[in-house]
């Protein structure tokens, strides 16, 4: 017995050691990456870098039009994907209710499966699909609109799964209390379900935005890589991630500038995450919690 217990303790220690080592490794890798980006890229970051147009294939100048294009792409993607994902998540939520019929439940189960599959499709496939549908069939050409629409398609599964999770956060007791107060479904959603859902809704949106910011493969085929300032949604334009990719792989002597753009991308993600936290704190205060 005692030997067994000792064996188990040794085992536990080993597992803990592996877990610690793994964590350290990840932190160290991220630290090294950040260090590299900071050392090589931080020097170029300035207000002028943010607003000036790139020159000499990005070896000098800034990222003016590219930042704008990135913002527009993400905004378009969110505008398309968030409403769709919310509707889908609401449908899934309703289908999970006790009163829902068999047909509805089957449809919801099928939808879940489709979302799982679509969510794991590689982004390059989305790029080809977006190019065929939006650029050619819709006649939008390589454009912000086509890129945004493609990003939206990629976001929908991810967002729906996150939103569905978020909508299930409200305790059953609170839903029952809302029903007992003669709340309609809509009122229950507003006053009980949403207050509990906000953290996960926002987290899902932040994750989706981060992924959209990181996307290159799908955008190369749909919004292209023209590095001018876009003047309409039908202009082809370059996102920051495409810029990083281009500088790092296609432009001789572009590595330092690739680091600057990558650092900017990282800062953007951090800023968005912080903004989401701020929004959440504000919502909490407003709700009096």
């Amino acid at each position, binding site marked *: 017995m005692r030997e067994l217990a000792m064996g188990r303790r040794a085992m536990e220690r080993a597992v803990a050691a592996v877990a610690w080592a793994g964590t350290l490794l990840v932190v160290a890798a991220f630290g090294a990456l950040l260090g590299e980006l900071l050392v090589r890229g931080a020097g170029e970051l300035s207000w002028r870098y943010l607003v000036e147009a790139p020159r000499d294939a990005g070896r000098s100048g800034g990222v003016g039009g590219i930042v704008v294009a990135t913002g527009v792409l993400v905004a378009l993607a969110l505008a398309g994907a968030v409403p769709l994902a919310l509707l889908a998540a609401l449908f899934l939520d309703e289908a999970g209710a006790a009163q829902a019929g068999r047909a509805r439940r089957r449809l919801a189960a099928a939808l879940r499966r489709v979302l799982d599959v679509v969510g794991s499709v590689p982004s390059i496939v989305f790029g080809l699909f977006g190019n065929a549908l939006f650029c050619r069939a819709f006649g939008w050409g390589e454009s912000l609109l086509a890129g945004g629409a493609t990003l939206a398609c990629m976001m929908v599964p991810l967002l729906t799964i996150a939103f569905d999770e978020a909508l299930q956060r409200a305790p059953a007791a609170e839903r029952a209390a809302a029903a007992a*107060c003669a*709340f309609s479904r809509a009122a229950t959603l507003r006053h009980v379900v949403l207050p509990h859902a906000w953290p996960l809704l926002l987290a899902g949106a932040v994750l989706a935005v981060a992924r959209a910011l990181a996307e290159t493969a799908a955008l190369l085929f749909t919004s292209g890589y023209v590095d001018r300032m876009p003047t309409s949604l039908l202009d082809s334009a370059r996102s920051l991630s495409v810029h990083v990719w281009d500088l790092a792989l296609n432009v001789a002597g572009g590595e330092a500038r690739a680091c600057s753009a990558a650092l900017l991308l990282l800062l953007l993600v951090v800023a968005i995450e912080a903004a989401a936290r701020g929004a959440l704190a504000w919502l909490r205060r407003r709700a009096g919690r």
Partner: protein
Amino acid sequence: MGMAMAAVMGARLELREVAVDYGGVPAVAGVTLAIEPGRTLALVGPSGSGKSSVAQCPNRLIDLVAGARVRGTVRVDGRDVRDPGVDVIELRRQVGMLFQRPVVFPTTIARNLDLPLREHRLGDAATRRARAEQALRAVGLWEEVASRLERPAAALSGGQQQRLCLARALLLEPAVLLLDEPCSSLDPLAAAVVEEALQQLRGKVTMLLVTHSLAQAGRLADDVALLWPTERGGRLVELQPAAEFLARPRTPLAKAFVAGAAAG
């Protein structure tokens, strides 16, 4: 309590052969009873005898439970609650409910009361505030919370939360109140305060009170109904005026139940 209940004397609540099962497993087997307007009936019985299941039928809250099936008829004010013509929202306005654990909405005290009023379009902001105050006074909570209406409701003590829930139910001027062990999650002092608030409502609204305390049944109820679990679900084994039930239970099970309560 003035405005909220004065006009309403409660509605008749009638259960006829009400049976409940969960996914085919019987929980309640054919319960028949009636509560006259303004009267209070205490539903007692061992754990698992189906008291909560019965209590969730009149406002159709049991519709929210997956797999639950109800047979028989429940009538509120003469109307079958499962009649296709019945609007479940209207029904739940008429039939309020209080749970074993207080369930406040995740917001301020003030908004907990304002939300139901707003949802049912009961007056402008000033009127709603006045009604909220009246409901809080009716449950003896006004003095305690008047200075912190904008604080989170979840920060109140359990007893205060339960009275807030009662106030919230009263706002809609229900004709029937379903009370599922409203005091059993509270300490004795808080329980006494909630019970006092319920005492004030007697005669003004029809109450179905599920309780594990025969003493409480004796203090609050006009009649007592005893449910007993069987293979085929909980059965009604005795229904008597409260004083009679406590003093002279007729059936062996009721005798045992009353004796057990007295002993333990």
